[in-house]
């Protein structure tokens, strides 16, 4: 029990530190949202309007940094993240409508990638030294290719040259989002290329991890015993070897879930996908502090939560990690 209490205290402190850094980072960044807005409007807003905009953004009030910090925590506990400067709508609303897109697309892509990668790793690891090993360098090649370049090639090939898939967007814009097969189909159609590129670039990690564990495990005594007993090959492979080899895979899967939220900025930029990464990019360009803080908050919390899950799950699965000195 002491283990779990100690971990909990540790995470509470980490959360406080992350949130505090989250508060200070936008404030020490150079630039201000008013001139960013003027720059973005290509000279349509005269410098005479600076005063009006400053007041509209609530930046004219002279509050001390400490007061702002206290307000920030008060707002956080009320689930209020403030009003975005650029859109003047609540940050919570913006996050609420962006998150499902990111989690949906990247989450599904990660699960698919994990499943394919792990299964392939089991197969390659079990029959090592066969021709199937060629998969390793190929998948590693794709994982080392810069993501945005791969994405551009995929767009040029499948969207522009062949015209099979749309080049950008997250659904057919002429539709109003609703719960229909037609709309769901559109979402899947538009999500195919982004998901495909994520899977291609991330699958090699899963293959490699699983294969290496399989190689280690398959030389263990209990595997030899199982084979000596005359059990079917499939049963030994999955029931004995893979079952034990998958432990580290699971914990890194839990960790990768945390990066789903934050790690897709490039994908959302290249494919104009309306997720949280795109919002963060937009907020940074506009110096939109409230929205930036909101995005950082979501990303930090996601990573922390994933850590908690990985940590505690491992604690449950492997008693050795719980032992005190």
């Amino acid at each position, binding site marked *: 029990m002491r283990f779990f209490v100690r971990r909990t205290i540790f995470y509470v402190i980490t959360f406080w530190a992350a949130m505090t850094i989250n508060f200070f980072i936008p404030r020490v960044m*150079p*630039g201000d949202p008013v001139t960013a807005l003027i*720059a973005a*409007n290509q000279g349509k807003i005269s410098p005479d*309007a600076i005063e*009006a905009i400053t007041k509209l953004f609530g930046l004219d009030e002279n509050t001390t940094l400490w007061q702002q910090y206290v307000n920030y925590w008060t707002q956080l506990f009320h689930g209020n993240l403030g009003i975005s400067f650029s859109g003047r709508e609540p940050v919570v609303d913006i996050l609420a409508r962006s998150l499902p897109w990111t989690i949906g697309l990247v989450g599904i892509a990660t699960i698919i990638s994990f499943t394919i990668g792990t299964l392939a790793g089991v197969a390659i690891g079990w029959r090592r030294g066969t021709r199937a090993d060629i998969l390793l360098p190929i998948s590693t090649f794709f994982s080392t290719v810069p993501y945005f370049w791969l994405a551009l090639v995929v767009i040029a090939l499948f969207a522009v040259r062949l015209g099979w898939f749309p080049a*950008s967007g997250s659904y057919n814009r*002429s539709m*109003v989002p609703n719960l229909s097969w037609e709309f769901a189909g559109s979402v899947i159609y538009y999500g195919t290329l982004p998901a495909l590129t994520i899977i291609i670039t991330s699958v090699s990690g899963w293959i490699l991890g699983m294969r290496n564990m399989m190689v280690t495990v398959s030389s263990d005594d209990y595997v030899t015993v199982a084979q000596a007993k005359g059990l079917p090959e499939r049963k030994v492979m999955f029931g004995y070897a893979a079952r034990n080899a998958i432990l580290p895979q699971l914990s890194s899967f839990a960790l990768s879930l945390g990066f789903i939220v934050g790690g897709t900025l490039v994908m959302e930029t290249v494919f104009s996908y309306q997720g949280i990464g795109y919002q963060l990019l937009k907020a940074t360009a506009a110096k939109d502090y409230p929205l930036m803080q909101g995005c950082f908050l979501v990303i930090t919390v996601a990573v922390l939560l994933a850590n908690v899950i990985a940590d505690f799950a491992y604690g449950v699965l492997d008693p050795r990690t719980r032992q005190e000195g």
Partner: protein
Amino acid sequence: MRKFTTVAASAAVVALLATACSGGGEDPADGDGDKPTQATSNERSDKVLTVGMPNGEASANQNPIAPGAGSTSFGYAYAIYESLMQVNEIKPNDPPTPWLAEKIEWNDDYTEAVITPRAGVKWSDGEDFTADDIAYSLQIRKDNDELNPDFPGQYGDITTDGSTVTVGFTSGQYVNAVKLYKLLIVPKHIWENEDPVTYTADDMIGTGPFTLKSFTPQSVTLVPNDSYWGEKPLVGELRYDAFKDNPGLTTALTSGEAQWGWVFIPDFENTFIAQDPDHFNQVAGGGFGVDVLYLNNEEKPFNDVAFRKALNMVVDRADISATAGYGVWPQIKSVTGLPQPSGDDFIMDEYKGQELSVDVDGAKQVLTDAGYTWDGDALVDPDGEKVSFTLTNPQGWTDYLDALAIIGEGAKALGADAKVEPVVQDTWFNQVINLGDFDASLHWTDGGSTPWNLYSNIMDGASYVPQGEPANWNFGRYQDDEVTAALADFKSATSDADRMAALGTVQKHFVEDVPGLVIWSRPAVAQYSTVNYTGFPTAEDPYANPQPTGPQAALILTKLKPTAD
């Protein structure tokens, strides 16, 4: 000023697209003259007209009067809410066209306007539009600084007698009259129960030719307003799509996915028009907007009028317009810096027909006369120091930086050592341009409906603040009491003759003192396709600013006709 903060990735997409579909290969049309005339129909069409702006997602806040509001930067607010008058920026001397106001009468010194509302106009919820709505729309701008970027601190009393509205101003507004004409009017009966600053106006009740059908952050759909007071729109459905950045909208326009919008398309004739020369158009409106090379009049080398003059004579404006501006921004020809044809009526007789040209020998003569010498190739000023200066602008503003490079080449022809130095955008805004901490830097000017803004922004002593303190305009710190007085006179004059006399003084100083260099004019430009609808402003009939993001959108939308085929 155009900003290119696009990620390299997206830019490359367009490059790929451009190579992938540059099949046509024929010469782009020289003008609009050789486009076939299209048969049109007078029946409402059910085809969708898609409007695009590269501003990212729309936000779920439809307040149309807050500065920088999403609904105005996307443009759909202008199809729903209307302005008091329609102003044609390309013909600034034409009287404005009555719109929600039947007439607006100013007193002689432009400190008071009497607005007569149009009769028979209804809000889209069925309520009558009255003088109270106009008075209310002005009053909330007066009461809330947040909503008042146009006349900060300048509103006087706003009264209404039921049939007209009288609005006072604390100073003469001759040069700002057009800002009053362009104010959007909102319904009092809905807005008075809300805080106008935070109200999100989700229903979008307006007087305009269209009403809101559906909103998503990706796309806003409007349908015709059947109770519209003016000519009933023939466009069956309007869609405003969110495009994340310039390349996104460029792709949509060239593929025909969007049919109306504005985005800077480098080499637009090949990238855009050549894709469908019969239907694709790019049209420039008028106005007085220009980009200016501000010269630091208080520091070497630009504190010497002879050097400013000489630089002005070696800047190749034709090359700047064609190369740095890709032919999108028209060349400035008049020595007065005024864009044409908008400025034609404001060019003094003595400068009519005088055009800027590159004259290196003439420039060297000016310098020699002023006591400059040459050490080998290097220019040496009368104090014996070598002339050098830095041209600066934010990183990524590629058109500005390209223009600076061309200006630098001109300076080198004189023997001056000119360097182009990009800086971080935030630094430029907050520490360079406003504090006057530069030698030469490009900046835009306010458009306005008279040349006053252009000249005032460059050389008005009323905007002068010492170096090191933030200035709003007159970044070059030019000071001349005669000019300052003449600019004030122009604003407060009560007759056209007085105004022209004041303008003459300003213009003379602009030409002779060269406080800054106007490098090109920056009119409102728009792209559109006439595949489904025609009747947009053209080069031959520039009846309005062609962009969808302004009060003129209501006028253009009622003029569009479906194509018959």
